[in-house]
């Protein structure tokens, strides 16, 4: 099979070389009886030269670009990296007021079973006071369960607040130790350099006790 293709390509190459030599031959012929229309030629010459010049540059440019493309593309995530897909998490043994950290696509996922006080706190916040205004109700599917990507939206550190002993910041949520961003009990940014709320990953409740992330 490969041999057939190679013969085909060799044929194309021969045609290419044939065209090249024919063109050269014709060019020499043209050059020999150029005298008659010297003046007319001189006028059109510029345009013809420009055309060849531009089309060569264009073809060369397209060639170089299509050569560079696969090289750059190869640095994007590979198929096996993209295929990481989804994670299912059993949340049946999380008590009220506890959090767990799990991993999805290499990122930490915070799952917190909030206490009624925390829910109340999150709901009562005036939306006008928020840097990135979103209602608590829009950030959860069930009020009790808060699911977040545990990545500070500033420069990507993991905020503290998952462990019982951690400092939870000024708003009783999370506190990022890198540059001091404070998040509230809904994971919304309240103070510090981070621009956005902690992201909510796509998730669904498969049963009452199992969450599928992704």
């Amino acid at each position, binding site marked *: 099979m*490969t*041999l057939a*293709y*190679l013969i085909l*390509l*060799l044929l*194309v*190459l021969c045609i*290419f*070389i044939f065209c*090249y030599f024919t063109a050269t031959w014709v060019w020499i012929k043209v050059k020999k009886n150029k005298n008659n229309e010297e003046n007319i030629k001189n006028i059109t010459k510029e345009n013809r030269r420009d055309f060849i010049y531009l089309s060569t540059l264009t073809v060369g440019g397209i060639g170089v670009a299509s050569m560079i493309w*696969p*090289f750059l*593309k*190869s*640095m*994007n995530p*590979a*198929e*096996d*990296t993209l295929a990481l897909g989804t994670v299912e998490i059993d949340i049946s043994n999380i008590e009220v007021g506890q959090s767990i950290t799990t991993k999805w696509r290499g990122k930490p996922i915070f799952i917190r079973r909030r206490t009624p006080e925390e829910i109340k706190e999150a709901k009562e916040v005036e939306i006008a006071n928020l840097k990135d205004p979103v209602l608590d109700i829009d950030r959860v599917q069930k009020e009790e369960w808060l699911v977040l990507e545990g990545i500070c939206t500033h420069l990507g550190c993991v905020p503290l607040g998952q462990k019982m002993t951690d400092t939870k910041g000024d708003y009783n949520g999370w506190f990022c130790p890198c540059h001091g961003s404070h998040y509230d009990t809904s994971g919304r940014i309240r103070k510090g350099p981070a621009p956005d709320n902690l992201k909510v990953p796509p998730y669904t409740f498969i049963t009452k006790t199992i969450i599928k992330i992704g």
Partner: protein
Amino acid sequence: MNEPINKKKYKNSFLNWIEFRLPIISYFEKEYVDYPMPKNCNYFWSFGALATIILVVMIVSGIFLAFNYTPHVDMAFGSVERIMRDVNYGWLLRYIHSNGASFFFIVIYIHIVRGMYYGSYKYPRELNWLLGVFIYLLMIATAFMGYVLPWGQMSYWAATVITNLFSAIPLIGEGLKMWLLGDYTVGNATLNRFFALHYVFPFVILGVVGLHVAAVHVHGSNNPTGVDIKSKKDTVNFFPYMIIKDTLAFCVFGVVISSVIFFGPNLMAEVDNYIPADPLVTPAHIVPNWYLAPFYAILRAIPDKLGGVVLMLGAIAILFFLPWVDRSKIRSCNYRPLFKWFTILFFVNFFALGYVGMKPAEGLYLLIARIGLLYYFGYFIIIAPFIHRFEKTKELPASISDVFSK
């Protein structure tokens, strides 16, 4: 130093600003724009440019492959397969790199043949030839170490065989081999250091290529007549004439190499390298890469360990002496009717050696290898030094433009 600084040379004042502080623009102008090329140079003179382009392609594709390759015995083979399957265009990068190596040698062999036929190694270009042979040695070493990286069967056993060459050296041989391997046999330590060296060597080659080009630009390029440039009439500027010629050569070359990359990527590869390395089993049909086969044939033709190694290395080393071995004052074989045929026979012989190097070492093949070996060394030791005493050379043309106008 006393030359007056040429002010206001360019219209663009920024260029003048640069030029005054670092005359890099006029350097490039001198070497690559106004550089006078003999106007009768044929397409054989494009292979230097082609080789440079492939070197760059090899370096670039190599760096992109290194982003995804793992130099560890447990993961090397798997990571290459991952490049083939999962990495975006990984198959293309890998085939560009592996076939690029083969085509690098094709181009370099034609480049060497050109130099030998037209006497490009003779006065005053001896140093140029020496640098070239040095590049060739570095290329062989680099290609060998790169071939080890996929950690297939061929990789493993090639590494074993080639490092064992050093054990033939009396007294220090075994110690030297252990030092190269970093282990009792070819192992992880070996793979690790070969990866590091395979990354470094191309940049060494790039440096030597710089010297190689600088050296040829001192006395100018040789040409098919072997007659020196005598006046401005003999030459054309490198830009645009030779640049365009090289570009056309590169286009044709590009069609050939991409047809192999896309439609026959494993034509020049050995099937057994798709089997992961097994230190307990040597494959039955183990053959070297085609571009090393002539030297492999020489190695096998000698029924003695040390002798084979010495002759094989000698076959490359003797190339260094070619400028002093060939005593004739006439450069080009076009004007040496006798030596011409011996030189062409030398190329045919080299090809035949390569062919038998890929075949089993027995019977007729062994005989051909031994005759080929005799001619290879005979060419350098007997034919080249003495043939000018018997040879009736043709009359050289008065100048390059004389030949060109005919």
